[in-house]
């Protein structure tokens, strides 16, 4: 038998044991729907009076558990550094390679660019109103990046090369990551705990609520959007290289 069949036969009982252990472990939890976690109930009750933010989850992500968000953001940063190290410099296509633009229809181009602008606007709205309604830095950042990538789909590789330049994107991403840590260190230098919420709470339900929470929100949105656009740039370059090699004169 080949190696793969042996692997499958050995794996099945092991995964069976794992499944039994998982079932036994989760049967010790409270039944579904009767969770008695006190921390969550407390946060639900005090977020609106203390920080005047109506979206409790955003307040937890950027204020009450801000250190966890810093760790996650640095994971994102490190993973993007790894991808860039592996893929950059391995046969990038230039605009001279892609002689003909793949998108020839003018209607597609105009509506596509309008659609991309609309998607970026919706992403910005998600980030800005993340303190009031569901949204926030992470969701809005990915939405902005996906709006930007629509440009490649509807306007061809040349327009994408004009937008996705590495020497603009890399400093943007670094600025986002550094802004988060700098805001935390600034409060530390001023004598308060790390990532302490300065500026008054403001009025609930408006954009000016939550104090310095919204600065952290925008820093994370910048970093997530730039990191995702860098990622898409690297992978789309690989895609176009394979297209050029298949249809070019080789």
């Amino acid at each position, binding site marked *: 038998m080949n190696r793969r069949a042996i692997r499958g036969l050995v794996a099945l009982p092991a*995964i069976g044991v794992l499944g039994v252990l*998982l079932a036994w472990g989760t049967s010790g939890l409270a039944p579904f729907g*009767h969770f008695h*976690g006190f921390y969550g109930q407390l946060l639900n009750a005090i977020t609106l*009076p203390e920080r005047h933010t109506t979206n409790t989850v955003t307040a937890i992500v950027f204020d009450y558990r801000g250190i*966890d968000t810093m760790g996650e953001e640095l994971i994102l940063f490190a993973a993007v550094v790894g991808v860039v190290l592996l893929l950059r410099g391995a046969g990038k296509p230039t605009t001279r390679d892609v002689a003909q633009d793949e998108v020839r229809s003018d209607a597609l181009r105009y509506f596509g660019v309008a659609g991309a602008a609309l998607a970026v606007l919706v992403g910005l709205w998600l980030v800005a109103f993340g303190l009031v*309604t*569901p949204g926030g830095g992470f969701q809005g950042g990915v939405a902005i990046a996906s709006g930007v990538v629509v440009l490649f789909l509807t306007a061809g590789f040349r327009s994408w090369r004009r937008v996705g330049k590495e020497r603009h994107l890399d400093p943007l991403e670094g600025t986002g990551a550094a802004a988060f840590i700098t805001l935390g260190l600034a409060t530390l230098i001023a004598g308060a705990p790390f990532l302490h919420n300065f500026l008054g709470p403001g009025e609930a339900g408006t954009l000016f609520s939550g104090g310095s929470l919204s600065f952290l929100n925008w820093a994370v949105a910048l970093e997530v959007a730039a990191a995702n656009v860098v990622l898409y740039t690297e*992978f789309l370059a690989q895609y176009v290289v394979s297209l050029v090699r298949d249809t070019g004169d080789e």
Partner: protein
Amino acid sequence: MHYLPYGIAAWIFCVGIYGAIVSRNLIHLAMCLAVTQSSTYILLLSIGYRKNATAPVFKGFENRTKGVDPVVQALTLTDIVVSVTVIALILALALDAHKDAGTVDPDELVGLRG
């Protein structure tokens, strides 16, 4: 129904790991790892659910409305966005392996060549 979500999360976890073990293609392996990761999101959110409770967004509600647990939602939503970059790193490693060896079959990638 009391323990069904936990059982489903355990099932998806085991299925994802089995798919990663017997995979024939590194890209298929990366997708199976993504499936495994999504089972943890289901587990986290089912732990925090409370019956007849609303979402933890309290615009226009008075102060004593019951809401589901917001802490597990905070953990899950950062995790979803970060998992994209981690899977992209795995795919970049697969592309690198393809460049050297010409194949994405994990069985043919064993052994170092000196």
